């Protein structure tokens, strides 16, 4: 393996590694616009010029593979490189509009950051603002993207993304010289379902998010790392929120799960939380709305406990959700199996256990729109092949069910399936005593004996296990509305009523219990998840996405 030194720091890397990658590994910031780890390097922005001992002129770090013994100096250490990068940055700015006050990129803009860098920025402008080349502004490119070609630095990241990743090739450059302009043919709306990523990969304010447009200045945003709950892929993302409201979702790079991408449905999924009215107070049938949590939990357990028949199976229909976190599911499973004898316990509304293995497209999206189906399956919540919501309904209609405990989260991506809602409604109507834990007001839950408001995605922390068995931690960004509580807390309460151990108070503790209870998770910890991609499925730890690969690659 070649051994090279960058700014006097030695590093050994695999053959074929690019200088810029080696520098990144050393944590040395090499300024760049066109280079992106998940796109083919093109070396056109010339911002990553570095000097290599023995080379007559500065060379681009993003296309030059390391050679053993190479001695590299970045602009931070080398005068030649510094002069080169200063020059390139000045060129990039001579025709850049003075838009920062109205540009959504401001605050997370490479041009701004680099210009403010003492090593290669802070030059005095030599051009009159009136002289700049004018191009077209505020061009609407469909539901996701707004294009401002004047701000474009022509790094071609977007062009390569639409050509290599989505294969739609909807963006191209036209003209020549300093008249070159980024353009979608006839300004047509971008059709590919991953267009939102263009706003992320654009290093400047040329391609910005239409949904986030003018909402907030980015420096006001608080950031929480999380996992997309839109489907069973479990793309890594960051929740940007301000004073308790989610403003946008942006992908986090994870080469093993979603590279740097996020589908538009996932990106917009947070809007689903506010789309319908939320359930904010525990509600008991008959008695108006005024039920406090303690009474509610007590009543719930009381009613459920009452149906137990000594020596005989309990006629309880317990329906968990494949959208719940592993920790919630463990408590649900524990409460049901520790309190009742042979109840109907399942997590399927439909065919989740089959859909979880089906792709929706060749890039990220999967047919199963639940984030944690694999986790639920690993917990044995779909043990009975004939189980699921529909059989429960059938039995309830046959009068074979005395009580129902339902945990339900509306999907964040795609509309709720009316048939499923109808089935739920029927189940609730058909059983004499029903406890519903859910996030939103819903017709189907009207007749429930007890409706308990729980926290939705982004309002509680926990782990999800994606289709391929990668266990990932999702943080809590905002507080649940009203009196809503994390489902884990509610189930813990029920366990307490049952005189059982209510589970740990922190997510770490609850996950340790999961690791202890479920062999697949043995030896894992929350802290460990962050550092490595733990795959618990299939058990031998083979990563299916390894073979599946991604579109356009």
């Amino acid at each position, binding site marked *: 393996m070649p051994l090279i030194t960058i700014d006097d720091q030695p590093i050994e890397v695999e053959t074929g590694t690019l200088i810029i990658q080696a520098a990144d590994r050393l944590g040395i910031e090499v300024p760049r616009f066109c280079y992106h780890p998940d796109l083919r390097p093109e070396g056109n922005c010339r911002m990553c010029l570095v000097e290599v001992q023995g080379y007559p002129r500065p060379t681009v770090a993003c296309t030059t593979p390391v050679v053993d013994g190479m001695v590299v100096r970045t602009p931070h250490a080398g005068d030649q490189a510094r002069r080169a990068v200063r020059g390139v940055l000045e060129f990039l700015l001579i025709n850049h509009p003075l838009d920062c006050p109205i540009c959504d990129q401001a605050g997370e803009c490479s041009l701004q950051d680099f210009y403010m860098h003492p090593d290669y920025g802070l030059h005095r402008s030599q051009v009159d603002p009136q002289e700049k080349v004018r191009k077209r502004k505020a061009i609407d490119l469909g539901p996701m993207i707004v294009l401002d070609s004047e701000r474009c630095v022509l790094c071609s990241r977007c062009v390569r993304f639409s050509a290599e990743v989505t294969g*739609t*090739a*909807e*963006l*191209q450059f*036209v*003209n020549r010289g300093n008249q070159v302009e980024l*353009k979608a043919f006839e300004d047509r709306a971008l059709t590919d379902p991953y267009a939102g990523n263009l706003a992320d990969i654009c290093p400047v304010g040329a391609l910005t998010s239409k949904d986030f447009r003018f909402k907030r200045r980015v420096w006001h945003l608080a950031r929480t790392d999380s996992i997309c709950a839109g489907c069973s892929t479990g793309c890594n993302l960051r929740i940007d929120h301000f004073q308790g409201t989610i403003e946008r979702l942006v992908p986090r790079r994870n080469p093993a799960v979603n590279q740097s991408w996020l589908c538009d449905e996932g990106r917009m999924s947070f809007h689903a939380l506010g789309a319908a009215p939320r359930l904010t107070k525990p509600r008991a049938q008959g008695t108006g709305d005024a039920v406090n949590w303690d009474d509610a939990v007590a009543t719930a357990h009381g009613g459920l406990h009452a149906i137990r028949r000594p020596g005989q199976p309990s006629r309880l229909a317990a329906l968990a959700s494949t959208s719940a976190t592993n920790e919630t599911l463990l408590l649900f499973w524990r409460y049901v199996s520790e309190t009742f004898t042979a109840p109907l316990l399942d997590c399927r509304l439909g065919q989740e256990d089959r859909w979880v293995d089906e792709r929706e497209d060749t890039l990220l999206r999967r047919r199963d729109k639940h984030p944690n189906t694999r986790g639920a399956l690993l917990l044995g919540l779909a043990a009975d092949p004939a189980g699921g919501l529909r059989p429960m309904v059938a039995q309830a209609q046959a009068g074979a069910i005395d009580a129902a405990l339902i945990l339900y989260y509306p999907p964040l991506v795609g509309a709720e399936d009316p048939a499923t809602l109808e089935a739920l409604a029927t189940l609730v109507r058909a059983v004499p005593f029903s406890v519903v834990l859910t996030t939103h007001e819903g017709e189907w839950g009207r007749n429930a004996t007890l409706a308990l408001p729980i926290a939705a995605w982004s309002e509680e922390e926990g782990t999800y296990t994606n289709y391929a068995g990668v266990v990932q931690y999702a943080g809590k960004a905002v507080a649940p509305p009203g009196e809503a509580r994390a489902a884990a807390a509610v189930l813990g309460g029920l366990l307490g009523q049952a005189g059982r151990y209510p589970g740990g108070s922190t997510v770490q503790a609850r996950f340790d219990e999961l690791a202890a209870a479920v062999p697949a998770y043995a030896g894992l910890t929350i802290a460990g998840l962050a550092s490595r991609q733990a795959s618990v499925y299939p058990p031998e730890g083979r990563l299916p996405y390894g073979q599946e690969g991604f579109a356009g690659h």
Partner: protein
Amino acid sequence: MSLLSAESLAIIADARRAGPSAQGALLTALRLTQRERRQVGVAEVEYLARLLDLSPAVVEGVARFYDQISREPTGRQVVSLCRGIACYSRGAGAASEALRAALGVGPGETTADGRITFRLVECIGDCDHAPAVMLDDRFLGAATPAGVRAALDQG
């Protein structure tokens, strides 16, 4: 319906086979389209995109890279005056004015009747006849209004 003549389509088909990639035929296709349609506008771009199985954006991007491919229709005859350094030093400026007067249109313009387009082009490699002028693909040698007129009339 096809925007291009059968023989053009045949040539494009050959070009697709000649190179390692089908997209290699795009340049030829653009030239033929420009010659037959006198422009590569929206309709032409979409047609070529379908023909060569490319995205319209890609076709437009390539089309708008080259000087000889024009978005707006050009005249039936294109007079190209060289503004290269050699021709400049031999009075292309004066020639430009003379031609403007003779043709009634300035550089970059097309006559109202859509017959003649007058362009200034970069060095066309006819420097020994500076200031050099072309009519379509023909080198006319040194640019004199009379000479250009004659050439225009004989078509």
